[in-house]
């Protein structure tokens, strides 16, 4: 297994308004890793992810994607991004297929869809179990179903790297399991994942490393923290029953 870095942040600082939100973050995500970015509200975890995709400008430091400086990086088809659900709502109805098709644009020339592109959109809808809702309006979906659509949109370009901002927020239990399963499949195929999470929850068995932020600084970078409080309660177990205790994620496929 290679250990080539896919995302590198070195001494990254960022401000929102004039308030410093990131105060010098170092973070490396290597090929095939699943890294969770944890922290309280306002700790800067979403901002950190948004600097990686270029949505928030950095005031100091360096960001690299797949070894290229972020500003020079052009191969966006390799990146699948799942924003917080609130950002994706238009004033005109759109079907599930139309929304997911946007995710395929990076693989097309001038936005012309071929048969293979339609197939890829269909496949990513099947991955999240939403193929039967393909022609429905996204407005008619529940929060969890909507989140599955946004993940399908990110998967439509068949990315090597998935960046997700709170994918489990406001998602019902059934959808959480579908999402965990989808993610497990992607990781099994060698995808690299950077997740912003409020709590580890059902994704815990998938996560290799947790980076905890507080006040814009890295507080912890290492194995995921032990479940405490209500997450350690016996009732928590039923959320991730698919993971065999001894099976580590398989890291072959796409990238190796």
């Amino acid at each position, binding site marked *: 297994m290679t250990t080539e870095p896919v995302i590198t942040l070195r001494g990254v600082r960022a401000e929102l308004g004039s308030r410093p939100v990131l105060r010098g973050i170092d973070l490396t995500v290597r090929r095939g890793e699943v890294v969770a970015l944890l922290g309280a509200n306002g700790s800067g975890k979403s901002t950190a992810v*948004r600097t990686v*995709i*270029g*949505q928030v400008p950095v005031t100091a430091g360096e960001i690299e994607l797949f070894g290229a400086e972020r500003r020079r990086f*052009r*191969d*966006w*088809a390799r*990146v699948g*991004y799942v*924003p917080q659900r609130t*950002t*994706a*709502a*238009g*004033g*005109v*109805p*759109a*079907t599930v297929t*139309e*929304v997911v*098709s*946007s*995710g395929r*644009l*990076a693989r*097309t020339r001038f*936005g012309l*869809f071929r048969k293979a592109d339609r197939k890829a959109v269909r496949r990513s809808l099947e991955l999240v179990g939403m193929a*039967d809702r393909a*022609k*429905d*309006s996204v407005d*008619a979906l529940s929060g969890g179903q909507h989140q599955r659509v946004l993940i399908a*949109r990110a998967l439509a*370009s068949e990315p090597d790297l998935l*960046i997700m901002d709170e994918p489990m927020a406001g998602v019902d239990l059934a959808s959480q399991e579908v999402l965990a399963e989808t993610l497990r499949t992607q990781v099994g195929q060698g995808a690299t994942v950077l997740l912003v999470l409020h709590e580890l929850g059902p994704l815990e068995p998938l996560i290799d490393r947790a980076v905890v932020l507080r006040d814009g600084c890295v507080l912890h970078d290492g194995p995921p923290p032990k479940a405490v409080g209500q997450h350690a309660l016996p009732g928590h177990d039923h959320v991730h029953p698919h993971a065999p205790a001894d099976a580590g994620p398989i890291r072959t496929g796409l990238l190796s």
Partner: protein
Amino acid sequence: MEILDYAFMQRALLAAVLVGVTAPAVGVYLVQRRQALMGDGIGHVAMTGVGLGFLLSWSPVWMAAVVSVLGAVLMELVRWHAKARGDIALAMLFYGGMAGGVMFINLAPGGSTSNLSSFLFGSLSTVSSSDVTAICVLAAFVVLVTVGLRRQLFAVSQDEEFARVTGLPVRFLNLLTAVTAAVTVSVAMRVVGLLLVSALMVVPVAAAQQLTRSFAATFAVAVAIGVSVAVGGTVTSYYQDVPPGATIVLLTIGAFILLTALAAPLARRRARALAAARPGADPAECSIPASRAADGKVGA
């Protein structure tokens, strides 16, 4: 059809068809990105172009196109750079544009504010053949952009942040949307008038939404409504001697009300059809016996 015997009516009807196509085609993206009033702002700015056209004796349509494109670019720049004070900057741009128009037209030899009224509210008899040429060229540009780049414009209008991560040139596409809207204002100016342009961009889209679930269908239905009301309004205006812009806008609003009234029973029928096609899946009601649900008397 004696209406087609007159050259000025042929020109007016051609212009009406092009307006009916282009205004909702741009409007659907403006509504999607929740900038429904953008067309109105550009309409105000275009008045300076009309005034300049009179002053310099150039084609008011082309001058309006140039000035409103510049205004649209300026509006996009304001949107990028001035976040908090953006709306004040836009207000200054709009009213500056309007005042500029009134000023220039009064400076023009023999010009007075009354010359402006055919541009503000639309007028059929004044559509000249050079206007028609300009309208055709500009409309071709609008159709090319709104249809040719529909997937890109959809992605940017739906979720700008995500569009950036797919590598789309987001700023360029935003600018292109604004410029296309500005060009559409110049296309529609002669028939509907600058003050009523925005209605034809927004209301057909709102009306179409009452029936549709997809973006593609909304686009198609909005254009169909746009063409129908533009042609219908132009013909009515000819026979009844009423102003075309006002007639078109009132017809559009009528279409909106009609489709809104139709939407509720249609949605109920669609839900029933869905329930019949997928028995067991997603029951629409909470365990109401099938025999009662089928007669439509019970339900949400």
